[in-house]
């Protein structure tokens, strides 16, 4: 049973436009959410996170929105750049800091020059 779902396997956007990556979850015990970015043959790298007590967190071109009632979060990248092309994983935690993460299957983002 997938507790973290990234239903769109891929997304293609034009350079300079906004990329919106979606993530849904089913476990109401999740209280912290993270986005990771992964290039081929490398490990995932942390991008941005949000606590369940917030509904928005922004870091430069990256913003994560959380809708707890809908159990939905999204990552916005604006403006998108070709270097953003990668696989993006949504992850969730239910056990506080230093606890295991539950990951979605990932979304492959392609940013066209």
């Amino acid at each position: 049973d997938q507790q973290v779902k990234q239903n769109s396997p891929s997304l293609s956007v034009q350079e300079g436009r906004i990329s919106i990556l979606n993530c849904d979850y089913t476990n109401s015990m999740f209280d912290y959410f993270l986005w990771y970015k992964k290039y081929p043959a490398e490990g995932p790298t942390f991008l941005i996170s949000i606590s369940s007590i917030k509904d928005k967190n922004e870091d430069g071109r990256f913003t994560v929105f959380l809708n707890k009632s809908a159990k939905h979060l999204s990552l916005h990248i604006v403006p998108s750049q070709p270097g953003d092309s990668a696989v993006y994983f949504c992850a969730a935690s239910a056990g506080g800091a230093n606890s295991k993460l539950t990951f979605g299957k990932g979304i492959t983002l392609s940013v066209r020059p």
Partner: protein
Amino acid sequence: GAGVSQSPSNKVTEKGKDVELRCDPISGHTALYWYRQSLGQGLEFLIYFQGNSAPDKSGLPSDRFSAERTGGSVSTLTIQRTQQEDSAVYLCASSSQGFEQFFGPGTRLTVL
């Protein structure tokens, strides 16, 4: 500073053989995690070590899988009698006091 390192980067083995995968976490990180990513799938939690506490083994798929962490640092994931379905990228991560986990580059395991 040095990140999480894993060895080997690639491992090809025959079905039925045992394999050992190694992880060197970031120095000072108290928590260490193993995940695996099968083709087309997300990262699947395997096992988690936190300080001197008993490890959380709830993600290990079978008793052929085991892991240990020596001296609170290096960890070894052992898969006995490998099967073709064990083929995946095995990722190790470590963390300090926050939610963010730092991942190594992974070991790609192929079981023929």
